[in-house]
């Protein structure tokens, strides 16, 4: 039967269909891998008993001919998705002991299609971070290490646990959420595929909110095809999310035709930043050459407001967060720290419940929205956001997709950037602009750095045109032929 954890979702689906193995066997193999990968600290809560139960039910459904699109596929769920009666922490002390009495729409969609939950995975606290160093439940470790160097590296963030679980073969896929790059950047750091769909494609209902105009759930897996299969199951209109878009969900897997002849691929000159590392630049050029060789037409484009995207993002996202996170008041759920009166109880609870980065962003956001500063910061940032979105709109009159690097570097060491918020924010320089514009994007592993670490390339598409993004990503993946995997040092 071989090692079932090494299969992808598509291959496992075929194996299950052919009766080569059962969902119980597939799940058992992943539970063993998940337990062995404890040193990576990818999981906050493991749910092996429920997983076995779900796999057993899955086998029964299959026997009755009622298999869903992800029937029997074991997945990890970012601990930002509410899961009924299962601890949901958002990696924050403030949600201590929170067991939702309801299920998020995205996870409910996955279970409806037969997927099996292995557990809830770690992340940056309340999804705020780019290295998974802000979690109340400790750092997540990247399965990858530099060649000849046994020091631990960050997995990226905020979906660091999702990335680490998938890259370590503990889960076949994982849900992530992306606000400014939180799916794509960790995917790049761990050598997997991560897709942020168009804003509105996946429901945000039951996902712990960070910045509501930016947050978007998406799939992370080890191939473009696997993310396409997962996204189809996750997506769909949800009346409970006011910004969910009422559109049919295409068969994303069918978009993987392998043919991009005549496709116009935009290369934005502003992404060629001063001080771009030569190996990132070389990888990007390699990607351009691959697309050209596959018959695409390369078009130089300009996105003139790119350099202002990060600054706009770091006003808009904290502003929305300061409003969203007002709900953590020690009254309805989670932590309460008593005080001398109600206000004191609020302030004590939030002082103890939130970590340093969350507090920093809440203060920035509160300040940006406060009387006298609203126009100068928040309104200005929202206008800059319009200009950034218009840049993309104009570009998509000339091209079908845009190709860029996913992140400015490979995975880095713990502590490298955690003392300097601005240095940390720069990780998202290539992912934030598309987040502000609500566009779909995907990171595809495209090569290894000189130090032997994975590097990703990013493809961005038109709103609701994930199909073209997947099609181009499939060709990129094929050309890159990225088959490297981390050594499983964590097994000891």
């Amino acid at each position, binding site marked *: 039967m071989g090692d079932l954890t090494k299969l992808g979702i598509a291959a496992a689906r075929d194996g299950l269909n052919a009766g080569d193995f059962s969902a119980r066997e597939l799940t058992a193999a992943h539970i063993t891998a998940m337990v062995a990968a404890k040193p990576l600290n990818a999981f906050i809560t493991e749910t092996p008993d429920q997983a076995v139960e779900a796999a057993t039910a899955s086998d029964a459904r299959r026997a009755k001919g009622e298999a869903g699109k992800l029937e029997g596929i074991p997945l990890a769920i970012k601990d930002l998705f509410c899961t009924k009666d299962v601890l949901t922490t958002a990696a924050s002390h403030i949600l201590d*002991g*929170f*067991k*939702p*009495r*309801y299920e998020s729409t995205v996870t409910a969609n996955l279970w409806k299609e037969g997927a099996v939950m292995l557990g809830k995975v770690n992340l940056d606290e309340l999804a705020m971070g780019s290295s998974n160093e802000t979690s109340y439940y400790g750092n997540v470790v990247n399965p990858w290490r530099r060649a000849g160097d046994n020091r631990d590296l960050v997995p990226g963030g905020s979906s660091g646990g999702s990335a680490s679980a998938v890259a370590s073969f503990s889960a076949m896929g994982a849900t992530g959420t992306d606000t400014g790059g939180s799916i794509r950047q960790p995917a790049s750091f761990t050598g997997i595929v991560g897709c942020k769909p*168009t*804003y*509105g494609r996946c429901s945000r209902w039951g996902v712990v909110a960070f910045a509501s*105009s930016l947050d978007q759930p998406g799939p992370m897996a080890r191939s473009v095809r696997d993310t396409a299969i997962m996204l189809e199951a996750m997506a769909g209109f949800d*009346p409970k999310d*006011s*910004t969910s*878009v009422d559109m049919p969900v295409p068969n994303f897997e069918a978009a993987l035709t392998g043919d991009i002849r005549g496709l116009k691929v935009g290369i934005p000159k502003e992404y060629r930043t001063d001080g771009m590392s030569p190996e990132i630049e070389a990888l990007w050029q390699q990607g351009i050459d691959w697309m050209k060789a596959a018959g695409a037409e390369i078009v130089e484009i300009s996105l003139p407001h790119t*350099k*202002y995207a990060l*600054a*706009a993002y770091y*006003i808009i996202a904290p502003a929305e967060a*300061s409003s969203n996170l*007002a709900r953590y008041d*020690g*009254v*309805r*759920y*989670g*932590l*309460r720290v*008593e005080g001398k*009166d*109600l*206000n*004191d*109880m609020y*302030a*004590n609870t*939030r*002082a103890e419940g*939130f970590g340093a980065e969350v*507090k*920093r962003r*809440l*203060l*920035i956001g*509160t*300040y940006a929205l*406060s009387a006298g500063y609203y126009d*100068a910061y928040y*309104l*200005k*940032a*929202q*206008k*800059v*956001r*319009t*200009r950034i979105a218009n840049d993309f709109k104009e570009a998509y009159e000339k091209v079908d997709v845009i190709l860029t690097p996913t992140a400015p570097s490979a995975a880095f060491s713990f502590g490298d950037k955690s003392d300097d*918020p*601005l240095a940390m924010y720069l990780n998202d320089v290539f992912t934030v602009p598309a987040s502000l514009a609500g566009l779909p994007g995907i990171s595809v592993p495209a090569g290894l750095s000189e130090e032997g670490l994975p590097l990703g390339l990013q493809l961005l598409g038109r*709103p609701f045109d994930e199909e073209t993004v997947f099609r181009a990503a499939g060709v990129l993946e094929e050309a890159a032929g990225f088959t490297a995997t981390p050594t499983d040092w964590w097994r000891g």
Partner: protein
Amino acid sequence: MSLDKATVAKVANLARIKIVEKDLEPMAAELNNILGWVEQLGEVDTENVEPMTSVAEMRLRWRADEVTDGGYVEDVVANAPSREDGFFAVPKVIE
């Protein structure tokens, strides 16, 4: 626009986050560092540019104004740190 200690204390109070006196100064420095970097937005010409308020080009949906949900008090208060008879319990607010 530079934040001083007093402004940080005011903002922290608005955000309902207790910050002890000795942490106000370092926090002011951190926030000023970020806000200083954000100042670059001033370089962008935003004359006659509308602020972006909707990501997807869509109008928010309307629905009939009727009760469509509810009737599960126990679920609502299940996670409360303190509750009484189906209500959230908080420290006394009226003397």
